[in-house]
């Protein structure tokens, strides 16, 4: 059939060129026959609806399957509240650590030329390509009872693994690249002229950063923090390996989703999951809005 179509179009081409071409919109040669267009659109939207929209709908349908009161009862359970608190705490720690690091790293990488820069950027990106389970495992190898520093920590009664520090470390590892990656291209695009002007007018380094650089990159910073936070709150694999699953103490929200699901407490499990799904949706909406601001930031200021 395609062959036939191909031939008929080929035969039509010279004629079309001599007669129709001057009147045809230039877009016509850049588009497909109508039935192909409709087929591709239908396939794309059907695929996204089945594989992406439906799972999202299931989360809310299951969470509300026993009614609104059961939903809120599940969320106000002490175990749920403690998981929410821990998740917020871990996210606050790792986001602020990575925020400071990300800004400093972006300053070094975007504002100066030095050899080995590409390698440094690759190393910063590394946590993105490491399996979450391995991201947790490396901290077990360092801080676990059989790990390199485990015995020393034990003799000094310091708890890293199966406690808050371990969870925060694993989360920081997993979310390490977000802020730096959001800022590096933005700051490279902006160049160093404005900072150089400030310095030559007598501003100190910190004044230059806070008065000149930071206002220019504020949306980029927010963008990085947003994505970093979403991943920090939702991280499952790495945290699962280092948390020890102590009920009411070291369970984050994603871990509680798993535990409740395995106990067939589906309403409770999906209720927590629905909070995380809402976080994802809000993050996406905020991300779309921020992308518009960042496009404006990237424009040179001097024209």
């Amino acid at each position: 059939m395609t062959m036939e179509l191909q031939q008929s179009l080929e035969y039509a081409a010279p004629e079309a060129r001599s007669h129709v071409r001057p009147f045809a919109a230039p877009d016509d040669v850049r588009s497909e026959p109508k039935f192909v267009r409709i087929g591709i659109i239908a396939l794309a939207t059907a695929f996204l609806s089945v594989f992406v929209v439906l799972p999202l709908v299931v989360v809310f349908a299951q969470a509300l399957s026993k009614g609104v009161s059961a939903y809120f009862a599940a969320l106000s359970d002490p175990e749920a509240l403690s998981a929410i608190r821990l998740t917020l705490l871990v996210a606050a720690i790792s986001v602020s650590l990575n925020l400071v690091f990300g800004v400093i790293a972006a300053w070094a990488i975007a504002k100066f030329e030095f050899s080995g820069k590409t390698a440094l950027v690759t190393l910063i990106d590394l946590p993105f390509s490491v399996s979450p389970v391995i991201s947790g495992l490396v901290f077990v190898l360092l801080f676990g009872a059989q790990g390199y520093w485990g015995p020393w920590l034990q003799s000094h009664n310091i708890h890293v693994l199966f406690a808050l520090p371990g969870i925060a470390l694993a989360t920081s590892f997993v979310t390490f690249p977000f802020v730096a990656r959001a800022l590096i291209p933005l700051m490279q695009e902006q160049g160093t002229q404005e900072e150089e002007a400030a310095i030559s007018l007598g501003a100190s380094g910190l004044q230059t950063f806070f008065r000149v650089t930071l206002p220019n990159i504020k949306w980029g910073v927010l963008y990085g923090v947003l994505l970093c936070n979403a991943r920090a709150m939702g991280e499952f694999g790495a945290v699962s390996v280092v948390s020890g699953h102590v009920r009411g103490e070291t369970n984050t929200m994603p871990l509680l989703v798993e535990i409740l699901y395995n106990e067939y407490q589906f309403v409770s499990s999906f209720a927590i999951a629905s909070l995380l799904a809402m976080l994802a949706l809000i993050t996406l909406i905020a991300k779309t809005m921020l992308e518009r601001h960042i496009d404006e930031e990237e424009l040179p200021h001097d024209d």
Partner: protein
Amino acid sequence: MKRRRTLPGFGLSLGLTLTWLSIIVLIPLAALFLKTFELSPDQFWNILTSRRTLNALKISFGLAFAAALVNLVMGTVIVWALVRYRFPGRRLFDAIVDIPFALPTAVAGVALTSLFAEKGWLGAPLAAVGIKVAFTPVGIFVAMVFIGIPFVVRTVQPVLIDLDPEIEEAAASLGANRWHTVSKVILPSLIPALLTGLALAFARAVGEYGSVIFIAGNLPNVSEIAPLLIVIRLSEFRYADATAIAVVMLVASFLIIFVVNRLQRWAQTRVPAH
């Protein structure tokens, strides 16, 4: 280059960056390799060639590749629809593509399981025609397809948007029909981006844990993925086994990063910079 050094704070910011990078990323990853060197080559080999490990690696790598291929095909269809056509809800569907990135993996895992379980919205009709998805390797494949959706779309999208329309018009005016223009002119210039997306989706699916373990069934040798086997070995305090499997997977992801970097350099030499 000299002019750039007029800004202050280079030594300090680079020093802090390297220190923090070492503490959070490099030292922990080095620990993994150090631990592997404690194993004798024989031990290492025996762990990797044990039936259960081999099967787990085969399942993770094999299904991840199959899922990445589906993502390559469907990603091309989706990106074509989003970039080239105007239809109601286009911007919404464009935003929806990012959901697998944003949705926590555990949430995706329980949602997909519930959807494809025998009594689920999709599982029930599929079971009626004799297809079982949840708790089989097919389930692993479905979860891997889900998490890989954004990669091909987001790597190809900017390239397709920036493609010079004159190339297509030239091809058409020289008598090429639409199919020839697409397959001989447009697709070849998308190849580096398509392969990058394929590699990224593959890398993500190989290491994926959260969205897979709920739907997988986790039967040793049948539906047990390599990351889960690492977790199981850890819970059995068999650190050597966990480490050996982890090192193989880590080296594989390093290779993929290398390939992706090469592909991106290739892409830059092929498509003129904008």
